[in-house]
């Protein structure tokens, strides 16, 4: 049961009869002394107060007994299965009144706060017996993952709106919020670069790469170094008998290479850099690289790992790959445990037996934290090409250059220490034969994509 503002107002109006009764009674008593008149007034005022309270409570009780039951309701949800982070989703709730009375209700849909209900989440409904109404809410989720709703609270008021009955009904629902893939704005420019590599660009730029593609006729602008004289000798010119046409070889980048992306979900991934957790940056970078590499015809495997496999996408291609990736990523949150790097080579071997590009997305802050990674790397670099990508902190670089007062100098020293530690770890990683990519959060995905393109252009995959 609950009371409404109307009931408070009704009770407040009681001041009128109380004062009126007091004043009238003391005037009517005609007592010679003011004290006696006041006593007469007081008696009348107390009576009026009691009467008004009884009236209000009586009205409230009648109102409550006339309210429709908030339990005799059927609920049905209509939700989109998934939505990208930052985009609005329509949540529809169909409320059907199963009772015999008119339901005057206020409905609250019990979404988690991070589901981001816009507006007040208090919907007024008037549902005649047996009919149904739709409650539409716009959700703008604020976090990745499964946003849940378990309950709907219905407050059913009586005809006077004084007292209401309230009940919470079970109505479970799930909305999966996918990573935003904000770095997809970088994709078109990288795809253009890829096409240039591929020799399929409309520009007359010779395709780079190491894999033989085809032999075609020379056109002006082709690199004369790629003229294949043997083919030219075999090809006679149909227009000028006895003459020959110049033939050139074209090349294209290797296709069907394997790429394994290992995303670290341990405590290093929980670090928030420039208002983005490392894990989210890693997801962005994974998505951009996967989108690019799947266009280039390479095969992507993805693994989220700390001490166990948190997520795994294997053997998917094209649009299905991205859909499965974002679905797997959606529910993964960092955990405060140390990553077990020693098991990673075995998992990579399970994903592919061929030489592959292994991209490890983690954080390289300090030699102490990176000991496990450094110990494991030689096993990977012996078989595969390895890139260790990590998010750099732009604020550390800024802090290391501020030296105006003592506090700032100590901060600069601490920042410099952190940068030096990171640099030492990166140097160690490079000595072990792996490549490193380090960039601020918003630049890491394109930087990783660029490194991939560079490796592809150099034919090192």
């Amino acid at each position, binding site marked *: 049961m609950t009371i409404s*503002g109307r*009931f*408070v107002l009704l*009770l*407040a109006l009681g001041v009128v009869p*109380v004062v009126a009764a*007091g*004043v009238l*009674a*003391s005037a009517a008593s005609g007592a010679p002394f*003011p*004290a006696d*008149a006041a*006593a*007469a*007034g*007081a008696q*009348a*005022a*107390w009576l*009026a107060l009691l009467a008004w309270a009884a009236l209000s409570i009586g009205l409230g009780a009648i109102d409550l007994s006339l309210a429709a039951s908030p*339990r005799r*309701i*059927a609920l*049905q949800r209509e939700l989109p299965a998934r939505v990208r982070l930052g985009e609005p989703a329509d949540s529809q709730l169909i409320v059907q009144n*199963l009772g015999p009375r008119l339901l005057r209700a206020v409905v609250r849909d*019990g979404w*988690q*706060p*991070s589901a981001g209900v816009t507006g007040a989440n208090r919907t007024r409904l008037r549902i005649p017996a047996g009919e149904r109404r739709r409650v539409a809410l716009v959700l703008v989720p604020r976090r990745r993952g499964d946003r849940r709703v378990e*309950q*709907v*609270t219905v407050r059913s008021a009586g005809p006077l709106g004084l007292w209401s009955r*309230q009940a*919470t*009904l*079970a109505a479970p629902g799930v909305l999966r919020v996918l990573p935003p893939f904000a770095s997809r704005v970088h994709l078109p420019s990288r795809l253009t670069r890829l096409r240039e590599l591929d020799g399929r660009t409309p520009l007359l730029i010779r395709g780079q790469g190491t894999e033989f593609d085809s032999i075609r006729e020379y056109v002006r602008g082709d690199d004369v170094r790629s003229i294949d004289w043997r083919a030219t000798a075999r090809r006679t010119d149909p227009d000028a008998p006895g003459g020959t046409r110049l033939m050139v070889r074209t090349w294209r980048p290797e296709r069907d290479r394997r790429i394994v992306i290992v995303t670290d979900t341990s*405590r290093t991934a*929980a*670090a*928030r*850099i420039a208002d983005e*957790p490392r894990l989210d940056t890693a997801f962005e970078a994974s998505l951009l690289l996967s989108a690019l590499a799947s266009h280039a015809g390479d095969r992507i495997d993805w693994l989220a790992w700390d001490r166990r496999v948190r997520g795994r996408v294997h053997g998917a291609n094209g649009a299905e790959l991205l859909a499965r990736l974002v679905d797997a990523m959606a529910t993964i*949150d*960092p*955990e405060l445990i140390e990553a077990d790097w020693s098991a990673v080579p075995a998992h990579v071997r399970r994903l592919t037996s061929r030489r592959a590009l292994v991209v490890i997305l983690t954080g390289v*802050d300090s030699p102490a934290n990176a000991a496990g990674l450094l110990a494991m790397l030689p096993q990977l670099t012996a078989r595969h090409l390895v890139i260790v990508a990590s998010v750099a*902190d732009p*604020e*550390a670089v800024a*802090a*290391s250059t501020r*030296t105006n007062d003592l506090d700032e*100098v100590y*901060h*600069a*020293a*601490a920042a410099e*220490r952190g940068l*030096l530690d990171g640099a030492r770890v990166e140097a160690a990683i490079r000595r072990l034969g792996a490549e490193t990519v380090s960039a601020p959060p918003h630049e890491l995905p394109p930087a990783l994509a660029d490194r991939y393109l560079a490796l592809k252009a150099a034919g090192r995959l």
Partner: protein
Amino acid sequence: MSRREAPPAEQDAAGPAQATSLTPTLRGGLRRARTWIAIAAVAILGAAALILLQGAPGGGGPALGADNPGPAGAKAVVEVLRAQGVDVREVSAFDDAEDAARAGATVVVADSAGFLDPDRLAELSHAAERLVVVEPGFASLSALVDGVRLAGAASGAIEGADCRLPAAERAGTLSDGQRLLRVDDEAQAEGWQGCFPDGEFGVAVAEGPSEGGRVAIVAAATAFANDTVDEAGNAALALGLLGQTAELAWYVPGIEDVDASTAPTLGELTPGWVTPTILLAIVLVVVAAVWRGRRFGPLVAEDLVVDVPVAETREGRARLYERSAVRTHALDQLRIGALGRLTGVLKLPRSADAREIALAAALATGRDPYATERLLVGEEPADDRRLVELAAGIHELEAEVRRTLRPDADLTQTTERPGRPS
């Protein structure tokens, strides 16, 4: 099979399922809370039974009431007096007290609340042959006798009556908690005497003549109250003062003794509806609190992600440096960083040692090589000021080397104007 083929209309006819309610119904709630309800009921019944058996705690009645068994009452004294054959009458009206006084009874006035008008007290003293005034107020005292004034509280128990009042002499001592009176020379000349002096500060009991007989003033109720009457000579004083005549009128003035002819108080002038309106306002506040405070359904739980701001490590390390004032160590970090970057800018081999880098930097900028080496390698900062100077110096040197060797790059970097042709 049949479900799949069932047309939608049939499903509708079966009716949608009623949603499961998570809120217990009134009956369900009562059933779930029945243990607590039973415990509460037992506790209430037990308390009620205890009160019925032992009587209400504290006891009712006014302070020094003749039938008040509480700590502040005077039932003990009254009962002892009755046992000794004194006819104790409880009097609550002034007229009755005056009648008793004229009939020759000793009159006790215990008016700690100050209900009795001072003039009426004086009237009573005219009528009574023996009057005992307990704990008089300032106005009562001055109406009763000139020259006896209130003089604060006693410092402790009082030894020795030091006067010719028989009751006081028999008592000998009084317990702690007495109040004091001061009897001045004028009053002494009229025949007033003070008993139980507390040093120079005053006396606990004053006794002297009135127009009708004699008046004894006991400044504190301690000697008569139930919880202190058995201490020291309290009981002796009380019984001695009150037990001298066969009849005793025990007068505790109440609200009806307030003189109606005096000016009306603020409370009397207030209109009668004010108190009910205040109560209504209080009820309104409570009801409004319930209105606003009633939660719209249970709270929704949200599992939060682990999130560590990466700057925390840096902050912590900076504080650690600062607290332990490791100036040289802190400066070394800046130096190592700067040397590393200078190696790249000056295009020196990685194996170059710090002195070589310092020399190269000095040559590039035209600075004093010795000072540059001190800045980059040699000098240990003696105090905080020097540390800040050295840190700023290293930063400046690095910027200057960059400016000298790559003027264009530095220009675009500092002015941040993209697209400027070099």
